[in-house]
């Protein structure tokens, strides 16, 4: 089966310490590797306030895993994340090139307000 590149967003419980969070991530990386996928890279967005409460929690730790995987691997990974109570959300998007995607994300992290005032004059908002 052909492999594609994916970006997997994992939002874990915001109350976890760094070590606990690492354990959670490692647990899921293992699942991915066991199913035949590959973890190419990762990026972290840190602890963020989430837009709506999930399991009565208001904060989550956002992190991205860049994967080389196929449908079976993703199924296995998402299933395990669904069972895990410490993972609030998991979300997959396809990427053409993970390095480009990571670069774009880092640029966004460096300057989050870059595109914040584009349309004020047009929409009058």
């Amino acid at each position, binding site marked *: 089966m052909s492999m594609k590149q994916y970006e997997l*967003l994992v*939002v874990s419980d915001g109350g976890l310490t760094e070590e606990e969070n690492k354990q959670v991530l490692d647990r899921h990386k293992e699942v991915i590797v066991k199913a035949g996928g590959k973890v190419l890279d990762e990026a972290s*967005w840190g602890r*963020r*306030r*989430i*837009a*709506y409460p*999930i399991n009565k929690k208001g904060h*989550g730790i956002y992190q991205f895993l860049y994967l080389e995987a196929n449908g079976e691997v993703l199924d296995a990974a998402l299933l395990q994340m669904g069972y895990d109570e410490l993972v*609030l*959300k998991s*979300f997959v*998007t396809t990427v053409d090139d993970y390095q480009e995607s990571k670069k*774009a*994300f880092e640029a*966004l992290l460096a300057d*989050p*307000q*870059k*595109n*914040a005032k*584009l*349309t*004020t004059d*047009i*929409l009058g*908002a």
Partner: protein
Amino acid sequence: MAKRRRKNNNKERAAKRPCPLESAGVVEINFKDIELLRQFITEKGKIIPRRITGLSSKSQKLLTHSIKQARNASLLSFAAGYVPQHEPAQEQDTRPPRRDS
């Protein structure tokens, strides 16, 4: 007598505005760029229609897709739109003090 259909008069038509995103040089629309997306949703979190945003068909489609992704990733709220990272300073309680006890 049936009403005569008004012909499309070119003089009456407003000049076409360029797509605000393309003219600003935004190439990629990504669900992580919430500061960009929040400009195209209302206070209640609804997506603003194209006739108001003036976006090109392509951009609006990408934008809509990204907004929906951001909602699923809990970056934008379904019902309350953009949620700031830090809570605004608490408003002072202006209610009159309670009388009992």
